[in-house]
């Protein structure tokens, strides 16, 4: 009886695939997810509000969440606050742009160039290499931080942009996602190019690369969030090499009066990756659909 009823429902509304749903259940889950959404969003909103608060609103008691008289002062203050440091604010921005730009482009190029043969060719060592990359997803970079410092110093890259940029090229999560995405390209596509006499490098560049654009975007945002948020750690010691996130740390380290300026930098820092994600969300999800691990 129940089966017949279900069948009838399928027949009546062929496009509606949501079966087994109750209104109460839908409402309950909707309420729950909205509540969670608000909780998640509030700290972000607070950052935005603080970025536009004039100094006197920072010292209201009790503190207010929303801004009354929005001002751009905090953004203008950034230059003044860092005037005691040796380099101007724009230098930190430039450093972050250099690190993120080169790091992301290099990572996308180098990892897709390797992901293509690992996915589509057949050669000795291929499986072992892939398994090593998957294994490397299972431990965090912190584990290798000390030897990395020694290796980077030995290579003479310490206190240069290279110390942050070059290791980022071999970020394993990006390689792994790119490889999975290339897996689903049809072999016939590559074969037809080879028939036309294309060399492998050419196949990679003119067939594979244009077909994995969604994966570029995914690798870009994942790598972006790593490099955009870097403080340079122990690698970038010269003040003129330090990135934006380091400057943010310096500003926030001050007292509560720095809240506004700190939030202004925070807003600048978050607006770039968030905008990028808004624009490329559907492409990124297309890549993540192939992220699964088959053991």
């Amino acid at each position, binding site marked *: 009886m129940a089966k017949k009823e279900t069948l009838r429902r399928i027949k009546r509304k062929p496009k509606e695939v949501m079966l087994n749903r109750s209104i109460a259940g839908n409402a309950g889950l909707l309420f729950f997810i909205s509540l969670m959404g608000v909780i998640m969003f509030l700290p972000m909103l607070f950052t935005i509000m603080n970025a536009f608060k004039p100094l006197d609103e920072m010292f209201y008691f009790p503190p207010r969440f929303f801004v009354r008289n929005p001002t751009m002062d905090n953004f203008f203050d950034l230059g003044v606050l860092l005037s005691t440091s040796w380099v101007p604010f724009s230098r930190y921005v430039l450093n972050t742009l250099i690190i993120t730009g080169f790091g992301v482009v290099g990572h996308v190029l180098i990892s897709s160039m390797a992901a293509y043969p690992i996915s589509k060719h057949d050669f000795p060592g291929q499986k072992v290499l892939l398994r090593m990359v998957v294994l490397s997803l299972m431990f965090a970079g*912190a584990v290798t931080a000390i030897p990395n410092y020694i290796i980077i110093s030995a290579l003479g890259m310490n206190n240069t942009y290279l110390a942050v940029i070059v290791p980022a090229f*071999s970020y394993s999560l990006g390689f792994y996602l790119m490889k999975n995405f290339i897996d689903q390209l049809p072999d016939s596509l590559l074969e037809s190019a080879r028939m036309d006499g294309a060399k492998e490098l050419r196949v990679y560049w003119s067939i594979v690369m244009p077909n994995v654009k969604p994966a570029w975007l995914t690798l870009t945002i994942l790598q972006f969030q790593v490099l955009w948020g870097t403080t340079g750690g122990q690698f970038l010691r010269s003040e003129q090499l330090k990135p934006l996130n380091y400057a943010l740390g310096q500003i926030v380290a001050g007292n509560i009066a720095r809240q506004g300026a700190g939030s202004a930098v925070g807003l600048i820092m978050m607006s770039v990756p968030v905008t990028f994600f808004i624009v490329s969300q559907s492409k990124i999800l297309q890549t993540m659909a192939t992220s699964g691990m088959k053991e």
Partner: protein
Amino acid sequence: MANQSDNRFSTWNMMKRSKTSYALIFPYFLLFFTFTVLPVVVSIFFSVTDFNMLQRPNFVGWSNYMRMFLNDDIFIIAIKNTLVFAVLTGPLSYFMCFAFAWIINELHPKIRALMTLVFYAPSISGNVYFIYSFIFSGDRYGFVNGQLLSFNIIDEPILFFQDEKYILPLLIVVQLWLSLGTGFLAFIAGLQTVDRTLYEAGAVDGVKNRFQELWFITLPSMLPQLMFAAVIQITAAFAVADISIQLAGFPSANYAGATVVTHLMDFGSFRFEMGYASAIATFLFIIMILANKAIQNLLKKVGT
């Protein structure tokens, strides 16, 4: 005998024929070996020495590992904190990633895109979590303190990030806030690729509600994504350090925010006891790999 050398010969031949493949993978794997594989090997090597960056390392056997457990009280605090972190935030963030993705999945596509953004944004916004140091600021101008004071719930502002009682719970909250990242996206994407006809077939076969549907159809179809997200969430849960350093300070009050990674940084970057720091790193490496492998085996049982 002849057979063996034949095999070796053919492998060699195959390798020669695959020159192009090796050329293409060379740049990536050169860097991968230099900055990921070699460091693990170096770390294991240094972990049995007394290397201090200045003198030639001497072999000291297991003593670094013995020191960790027998002679280093702060390490014990750090490992306890890390386990609390991992055991709470690992599974909880994993569950959140899936539950949120699962609920969002049935919303209208535009709302789904918006909600995805809301949940994902904190994890890609650089160090925007510094805002918690203002929200939980220890003076009366901190948002939470201000509210509690004005409603007369407390008489004195609470020093949230300086008080042992609050440090770990607050760090867990912040970590959870940041944890809807790559794993969450993998779930959002994975849920959209589950074959719709399976749900219809399931309904015919007597699946009665959304939870049965989830257990018998959705989860088994998403096993690869479940595996992937587990790796991402577990690894992140064991590696907590930055938020502790930035919010609770370094070292934090009475080491209440110390984790294995901050402890490792303490010895590696400040005291230059590289041998001991390497032993800690190696220990963490083993824990992470074992935890991941264990979870992978557990997940294979989903939907059965």
